C-alpha cells in the first residue's frame, strides 16, 4: 500500500486530477488513523502506570499506619507490622550495593580507560550486558549453589550476594558510559601535569563523572530493592525478628509474596502496605536518578 503512495498516480492524463485527489484523501486518512492509534497506545501506557499507582494507593494507603513500621511480623489476626522485613530489605540492599558497586566501578573503569576495544574488553562488555538482562531467578539459583549449600543454610549474606550480582552490571554500564563522555583533553591535561594514570582516573575522571556514576548506583539500588526471585533461594525470609546475617533474613518483597497469597485479610492488607512502600521508594529513586542524569546530558 505504501509503495503505491510513493509513486505518482499512474492513471491516464484525463483521470490524473481525480485519481490524485482520491489518493491524497486515502493517504491522509491512513496517516490520521495511524496517528490516532499511536495516541491511543501512549495513552494506554500512561493509564497502566496510573492504574497501578491508584490500585496501590487505594489498597495500601489505608493499611499504612505507624504500626507497620514499628511492629514485627506476627501471626494473622494479632496486629503485626512489617518492621523486620523493612529492616531486612534495607540491610541486604545496603550490603549488596556495597559489594557490587566497587566491583562494577572497577570493571567500568577497565572498559572505559584501559581495555577500550580489545577482545577481552568486548568479552567483558558482552558478558556484563547478558548479566544485566539475565533472569534474576537464575542468579538466585546460582548463589544457592555456591553460598547456601556449601555453608549449610539460607542466610542474609547469600541474599546480599545475590543482589550484588545484580548491582554489578548496572554500575558497569553507567560507569563506562559516563567515563566515555569525558573529553580526552581533560585526561591529557592531567597527564601533562605529570600525574600517574591511576591518579588521573581516581582524582579527576571519577570526580568529573561522579554524579553520573551515582545515578547508576541509585538505579541499581532501586532495582534490587524490589527483587524477589533471587531472595527466594538465598535469604529465604524469616518471620521472626533477626538481624543475624548468618541466619535466614526477612525482606519486604518476599513477605509481600507470602502475605499476598495468604487467605488472611490483615496479611493481604499488610502486603498492600508493603507494596506501596516499595513502589514509592523505587519510583522515587528512579525519578531522582533520571532527573540528575538528564541535567548532565
Amino acid at each position: 500500500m505504501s509503495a503505491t503512495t510513493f509513486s505518482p498516480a499512474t492513471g491516464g492524463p484525463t483521470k490524473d486530477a481525480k485519481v490524485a485527489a482520491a489518493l491524497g484523501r486515502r493517504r491522509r486518512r491512513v496517516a490520521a488513523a495511524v496517528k490516532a492509534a499511536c495516541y491511543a497506545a501512549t495513552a494506554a501506557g500512561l493509564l497502566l502506570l496510573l492504574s497501578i499507582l491508584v490500585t496501590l494507593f487505594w489498597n495500601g494507603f489505608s493499611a499504612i499506619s505507624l504500626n507497620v513500621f514499628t511492629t514485627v511480623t506476627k501471626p494473622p489476626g494479632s496486629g503485626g507490622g512489617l518492621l523486620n522485613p523493612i529492616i531486612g530489605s534495607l540491610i541486604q540492599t545496603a550490603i549488596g550495593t556495597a559489594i557490587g558497586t566497587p566491583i562494577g566501578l572497577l570493571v567500568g573503569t577497565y572498559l572505559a580507560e584501559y581495555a577500550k576495544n580489545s577482545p577481552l574488553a568486548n568479552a567483558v562488555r558482552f558478558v556484563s550486558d547478558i548479566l544485566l538482562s539475565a533472569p534474576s531467578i537464575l542468579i538466585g539459583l546460582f548463589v544457592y549453589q555456591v553460598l547456601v549449600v556449601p555453608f549449610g543454610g539460607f542466610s542474609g549474606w547469600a541474599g546480599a550476594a545475590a543482589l550484588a550480582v545484580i548491582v554489578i552490571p548496572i554500575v558497569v554500564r553507567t560507569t563506562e558510559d559516563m567515563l566515555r563522555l569525558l573529553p580526552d583533553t581533560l585526561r591529557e591535561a592531567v597527564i601533562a601535569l605529570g600525574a600517574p594514570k591511576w591518579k588521573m582516573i581516581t582524582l579527576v575522571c571519577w570526580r568529573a563523572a561522579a554524579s553520573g556514576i551515582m545515578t547508576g548506583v541509585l538505579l541499581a539500588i532501586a532495582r534490587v530493592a524490589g527483587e524477589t526471585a533471587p531472595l527466594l533461594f538465598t535469604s529465604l525470609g524469616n518471620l521472626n525478628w533477626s538481624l543475624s546475617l548468618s541466619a535466614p533474613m526477612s525482606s519486604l518483597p518476599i513477605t509481600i509474596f507470602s502475605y499476598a497469597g495468604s487467605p488472611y485479610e490483615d496479611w493481604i492488607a499488610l502486603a498492600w502496605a508493603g507494596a506501596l512502600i516499595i513502589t514509592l521508594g523505587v519510583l522515587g529513586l528512579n525519578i531522582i536518578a533520571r532527573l540528575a542524569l538528564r541535567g548532565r546530558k
Partner: protein
Amino acid sequence: MQQAVPVPAQAPRGPTALGGRSSGAAGDAVFALACRCAGIFVLLLLGAIIVELFLGGLQAFRAFGLSFVTSTEWDPVAEVFGAGVSIYGTVVTAVLALIFAVPVAFGVAFYLTELAPAWLRRPVGMAIELLAAIPSIIYGMWGFFLIVPLMSMHIQPFFIDKFGELPLIGELFAGPPFGTGIFTAALILAIMVLPFIAATMRDVFETVPAVYKESAYGLGCTQWEVVRNVVLPYTRVSVVGGIMLGLGRALGETMAVTFVIGNANRISTSLFGPGNTIASVVALEFGEAQLGSLKLSALLGLGFILFVISFIVLAASRFLLRTRLRG
C-alpha cells in the same frame, strides 16, 4: 557535558619528580591490575553461573536424558520430571506478550519521536520508563487482585461467548473463565516488557538523520509515510534487537507470572487455560525440594535450560543492537 571540570584537589605532591613518578608507576600497576581482575571476575561470574546450573541439573539430565526436555510429565511423587510443559509455557507466554507489546511500543515510540510536542516528550518518556522500574512482585499483585477478576468476570466470558463456538479458533477460547492462565500472564508480561521495547525503539528512531526525514517530508509524505518508508527501514535491525531484548526479559520473568498463570502442569489448547513457565515452576516448587533430591536437580536443570534460551536471545539482541551500542 557542559559542566565545569573540577580541578584536582590534590596536585601530585612527590618531593621530587623522580620520586613522584616511581610511586606513580607502582600505583599504576596495582590499579590497572585491580581493574583488569574486576573485568575478568565478571567473565568468571557468568561462566560460574552456567557451570553451577549445569552441574546442579546433571543428576536430572543423567536420569532422564533427552526426554527431560521433551517429556511433558512432571510428577514429584513418582519422581518423574520433564520440562516440556514449562518450556512450552515459557515460550508461548513470552511470544504472546511480544505480540501484544510490540504494536503498542511502536505507537509509543512513534508518538515520542514524531507526534508529541517537545515539552511533553520528556515527561511522557519518563512515565513510560517508570513502568520498567516497578518491581515484578507489584505487577504480580496488581495482576492478581485487579486484572484476574476483570478477566474472569468480563473479558474472558465475552470472548468465550463470541468465539467459543466457532470451528478452529473456538479451541483457543474454550474452557471456563478462571481469570488466571496463559493469556493473563502474557498480558501482564506485555505490560512489563513494553517500556524496554518502547525505549529502545525511541532511541533508535532518534538516530535517523534529520535530513532523510526532511527530504521525505519535502516530497509531501505524511508522518506515517515517513516512519514507514524512511525511519523503519533505516532502523530495522535495531528495532528487531529491541524486540529481542523484550523477549529476553519476558522469558525469565518470575514473580508476576507466578501470581497469574494458574500453575498447572499441562499444555492446554485454550489461551485461557492454566499453565506454567520454567521460572514459575522453579519459584513455586523450590521450597518442597530436598537437598540432594532428584527434584532439586530437575529444578536446577530447568534453570540451566532457561539460561541457555535467554542467553541465545539476549546475545542475538545485542548482536542486532551493536551498531547503536557503538554509537
